[in-house]
């Protein structure tokens, strides 16, 4: 066992963890408002809008994230038109490509989660809101969105953890996040067990923190949905 090598490279892992957190939470922060809005469109009365969102979520849930990432990072770069466009300075950066791929992917999943939550709001709550004469905007802001989010919490928590683990794919496009650091050490020192175990331990720690936070959030805001103990 070569734990000394891991010790020497702990600063690299710290940098990697920072990048992992940046990628995961960056993608989640951008995707959250998008997914909340799209959840309403997904349940819209206008058929064309509803279908458009359904097709989007189907495509991005129906293809692997790694393929999406490669298409955006390597695939788009093949077209001269894109390379000469004003978008290229952005698209040439691996961080931007990774964020685009993750946002598109997690927004697709989150949209379906939220749309499901929206469909499960008891009709009575919505009718009560209407009876009070709330405007559409006030209905959404004060009744629908909070009710939808609290009902979606457990599933959305899962999705956040999936995004965290999915950041490991960023190492395939040169980013040195936690997995990238482990692969780098593998190639520099010819050991595999120690670097990957260390990476796994860091992911597990971050996940444990997330799960704990979710537990409290769930109790605080969604506790009223739990079955009453007699």
């Amino acid at each position, binding site marked *: 066992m070569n734990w000394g090598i891991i010790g020497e490279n702990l600063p690299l892992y710290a940098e990697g963890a920072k990048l992992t957190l940046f990628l995961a939470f960056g993608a989640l922060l951008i995707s959250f408002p998008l997914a909340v809005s799209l959840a309403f469109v997904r349940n819209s009365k206008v058929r064309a809008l509803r279908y458009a969102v359904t097709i989007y979520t189907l495509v991005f849930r129906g293809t692997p994230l790694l393929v999406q990432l490669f298409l955006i990072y*390597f695939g788009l*770069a*093949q077209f001269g038109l894109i390379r000469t466009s004003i978008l*290229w300075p952005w698209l*040439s950066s691996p961080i931007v490509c990774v964020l685009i791929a993750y946002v598109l992917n997690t927004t697709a999943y989150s949209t379906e989660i939220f749309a499901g939550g929206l469909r499960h709001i008891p009709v009575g709550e919505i009718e009560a809101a209407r009876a009070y004469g709330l405007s559409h905007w006030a209905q959404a802001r004060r009744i629908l969105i909070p009710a939808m989010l609290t009902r979606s919490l457990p599933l959305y928590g899962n999705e956040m953890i999936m995004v965290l683990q999915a950041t490991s794919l960023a190492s395939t496009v040169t980013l040195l996040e936690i997995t990238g650091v482990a692969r*780098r050490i593998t*190639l520099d020192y*010819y050991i595999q067990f120690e670097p990957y175990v260390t990476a796994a331990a860091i992911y597990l720690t971050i996940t444990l923190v997330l799960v704990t936070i979710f537990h409290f959030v769930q109790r605080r805001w969604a506790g009223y949905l739990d079955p009453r103990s007699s």
Partner: protein
Amino acid sequence: MNRHLKTICIFALSSLALSSAHAEKLNIATDATFPPFESIDSSGKLVGFDVDMMEAICKAAALDCNIFNAAWDGMFPGLVSGKYDALVSQLTVTEKRRQTFAFSDIYDHPIFRFVAKKGATFDFTPEGLAGKTIAVQTGTPMDAYVTNHIPQAQIKRYDSGSAPFLELSSGRADLVLGYQAQIAHGFLNGDSGMGFELVGPQLTGKDAKEFGEGVAIAINKKNTKLVEDVNKGLAVIRKDGTLNALMVKYFGK
């Protein structure tokens, strides 16, 4: 009853003998992202100079070899752990690698070169390359060289031998450092290599120790018998002209 027991014993023994014969088959890994040395052709077959050479060595030394494609980042750890018996992947012999692996005799002395877009000019000094993006494969002599000698450049590292060239074509990288033969016969002669050219000095192990002593077959340090066998095979194909014929076939030299 007794006879039955005997039959069972014979069966058990023969299957034991069979399995030990099976273990004789050598697992030889190569990273097939490195034409013309090793790559996968359109029919899914492993092809290239190293592959042909290794097959010739195995034949000459009467070794039962199974050469297959493996991921670059798992090759060296796989050799240490015994998952692979040998690696043939245009591997440069360096001091650092010698500490961990055994090597066969050296079979070629590669030249390393930069490749860039035609017409682009560079000042090939560490200061002149400051800020330029150089793409290399991780954990290679090229990686070690730019890391140690051109730290002012922006270095992008990839897990495969072919990805740096993709990045050069797309314009994400200004320069790729690679084996001259790899660039000339694996990249420039293909469609994606149009509009690019070899640039800068010809680099060898004499210019920097990172470029090593030459290329050889890496073998598990404990397996001294295999080192001997491979060297024997290598001597045979060197003497009978097979090695030379392969060099001419692939590199025209």
